[in-house]
């Protein structure tokens, strides 16, 4: 598999949405190819940044508001 093809599959590879065969090919390619390995690190870092977003607390209990709304 060529570098361009490997990199085009990064997203599916990250999500484990590709065949086992392709997964093995990509894993093997990343061990051998410094360029793709660097690109893979950048890719995973970016996804990890997104996933680092913290959960926030809702400012109020909407179920109470719903009950009030239902009374109206």
């Amino acid at each position, binding site marked *: 598999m060529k570098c361009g093809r490997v990199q085009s599959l990064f997203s599916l590879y990250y999500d484990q949405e590709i065949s086992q065969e392709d997964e093995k090919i990509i894993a093997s390619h990343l061990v051998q190819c410094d360029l793709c390995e660097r690109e893979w690190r*950048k*890719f995973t870092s970016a*996804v990890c940044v997104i996933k680092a977003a913290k*959960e*926030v607390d809702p*400012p109020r*209990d*909407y*179920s109470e508001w719903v009950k009030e709304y*239902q009374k109206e």
Partner: protein
Amino acid sequence: MEAEEKKTAGRDNLSTESWPEIVRDHQRYIYNLAYNLCHNRDEADDLAQEVFLKAFENLEGFRGDAKLRTWLSRITINTYLAKRRKKLKHESINLGYVSVPDWNENPERLAIKRELQWCIHHTLRLHLSKRHQVILVLRDLNGFSYEEIASMLNISLSAVKSRLHRARLAYRNHLIRSGCAGLVKDYSCYCEGVTET
């Protein structure tokens, strides 16, 4: 989260009487989805309220062939897209509202974490197309499966795959271009184990 889903999944559990309880089960999730789309607490509050109102008024529209949470999420996205205005002006950094839970940490570390949170939302909000923003929020922040996203956005599975890939590349490219990559270069020590290599 799964337990909540099971508790409220299916058409049979839905009724006017049960609605407040259902809202209670899903409000944290829907508010966070709204926040991840709006990146503003007040707008997210308005959006979440509107979603629960719309859903309540359209309970009969829920056919039970999708998870209730998926249905509510779809309403959230559609409402958000309908409401959104084009705000393209660049905003200055305001870290005051950024939520960081670990208050016991030292100030420097806390500041870095705040910046990171700001960076995440700022990039999503202002430096990606809406379609890229939405798919990243659904997949990477809210953890929907490819199939659920396809159903929610009414696009094919292959469209989900290609759009998600392009969105992640766009996000990565922005981090590199903007210098935010510098902020996250040694990221594993800022976010404590979130980095998966």
